[in-house]
């Protein structure tokens, strides 16, 4: 506080620094806010400035059978991915952090690699494999694909928690006579739960918003919401897209708040 008091009354460098950063924050957030404006603006095409407030685009979105079946499919897939990636990713994190596995660094990089490789190629590779295997394009294929790209998120958040917590808590429980199973269920699991859940929430969003992996794996009439929106946007740019966007933004916002409550966002600074 004394340092602040020592400052000269006006600091041009500091002002420029803050001004620039506020501008960048605006660059990040304004486009999202603009979607809200268009979702509520009743004109038939995207036009600016807005002329009023109406919920007709939301009505159109929720009344459209095409949008609704896509929304439910996306939610259903994201739900499955959430459960699968929590179980698979959580178990994998435990094995990596506690299993004394050889080549741990390599394995971690391997399980993280779907994040670094182009998602569209993951989709293409799976498309070719399903084609070769002659299985068609089943929903389970889509779920497996989404789970693959969601597991790294669960792995990352769970590993962050596992590396941060004090192993002596587990050792103390064991020293007091708890069996390894009991230590796991009564000490380790409750401690890593926030990390696993936070990763699961990420997994849900990654699946719900997934486009590149889904592109080649969806069937006509069985498309997920992002694919339907993309196809719609190629020809039509009206408020229905904005309303659909709003629905997913609200979902994301709820997730951010949930994350902050679960674990605190600071944990994600460590990539």
């Amino acid at each position, binding site marked *: 506080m004394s340092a602040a008091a020592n400052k000269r009354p006006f600091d041009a460098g500091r002002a420029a620094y803050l001004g620039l950063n506020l501008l960048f924050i605006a660059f990040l957030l304004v486009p*999202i806010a603009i979607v809200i404006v268009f979702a509520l603006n009743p004109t038939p095409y995207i036009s600016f400035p807005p002329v009023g407030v109406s919920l007709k685009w939301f009505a159109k979105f929720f009344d459209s059978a095409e949008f609704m079946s896509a929304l439910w499919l996306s939610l259903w897939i994201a739900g499955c991915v959430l459960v699968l990636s929590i179980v698979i990713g959580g178990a994998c994190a435990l094995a990596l952090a506690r299993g004394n596995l050889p080549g741990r660094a390599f394995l971690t990089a391997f399980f993280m690699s779907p994040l670094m490789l182009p998602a569209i190629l993951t989709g293409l590779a799976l498309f070719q494999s399903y084609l070769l295997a002659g299985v068609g394009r089943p929903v389970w294929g889509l779920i497996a694909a989404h789970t693959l790209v969601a597991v790294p998120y669960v792995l990352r958040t769970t590993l962050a928690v596992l590396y941060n917590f004090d192993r002596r808590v587990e050792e103390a429980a064991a020293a007091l006579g708890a069996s390894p199973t009991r230590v796991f269920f009564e000490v380790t699991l409750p401690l890593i739960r926030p990390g696993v859940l936070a990763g699961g929430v990420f997994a849900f969003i990654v699946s719900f918003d997934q486009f590149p992996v889904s592109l080649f794996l969806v069937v006509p009439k069985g498309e997920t919401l992002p694919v339907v929106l993309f196809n719609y946007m190629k020809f039509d740019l009206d408020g229905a897209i904005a309303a659909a966007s709003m629905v997913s933004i609200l979902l994301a916002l709820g997730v951010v708040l949930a994350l902050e409550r679960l674990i605190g966002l600071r944990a994600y600074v460590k990539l």
Partner: protein
Amino acid sequence: MSVVKARPSPIAWLIAPALLLFLLFFVLPFGVMAVMSFFSANPISNPNAFLTTKHYLRFIDDDAGIFHDALWSTLRIGLVTTIVSLLIGYPLAHWMARIQSRLANMLLMMAVIAPLLTGIVVRTFAWMTILQDKGVINTTLMSWGLISKPLPLMYNEFGTVVALVHIYVPFMVLTLAGVIGRIDERLEQAARSLGAGRLRAFVEVTLPLSLPGILAGSLLVFALSISAYVTPSLMGGTDVLTLPMLIAQQVGTSFNPNFAGALGMILLIVCFAIVIAYNKILARLAGEEGLA
């Protein structure tokens, strides 16, 4: 720290489901893609399919004169996106790493993560409403009488890069904030107390120390933006053709999955080189930090 270097414990078996998933749905498919790229057609359904390098030669010869252009514009868009993301991301990351108040830090973090949690399709839509001829910027400028006809902000590389930067800046910020946060602030203070101006202290102390973060963040953003599909195809119009768009075309309209596989392998090799560099840098960073 007193962990004994022992044989794998029973907990190691928990890796099995993940390993199975990754082998079946990741390693195997990429292998299939590599093999398919050397076949003339689907070798299972078509008995006349033969091994060939024609898909790669087709790319190398480039008779139609589009493949090389597509590769270059992919790399060019990736490079420009990376540079602009760094210029925007660095100040933000620096602010985030150095801000004192916990509340302000949390708000900043939410501002950076919120776009990350909004789908690519949604964010591209947002930029279409802003940059199109009847979009926010053009209508505003025209109603103020500053321009008489809309500026060409979209359906070109400019619009593509703007939207890509918006999508990938958060990755840059998160990578950089972690690195800058680990730099001891007292180093900069020491430089300043020795008479260096604030700018000089930053340029000669903080900036060099954050170089690994700059490199890691840039590689990440580059790898992500050269594999983007949604944004270039919606924002680029007929002006922009990138490698991922070419791949989608080969699968969707031309139905030539074998050639798509070859194009995919080319993109994959570029990305692999980047991933290896990225992991090397991260490993060095983790080493400096002293892994728990």
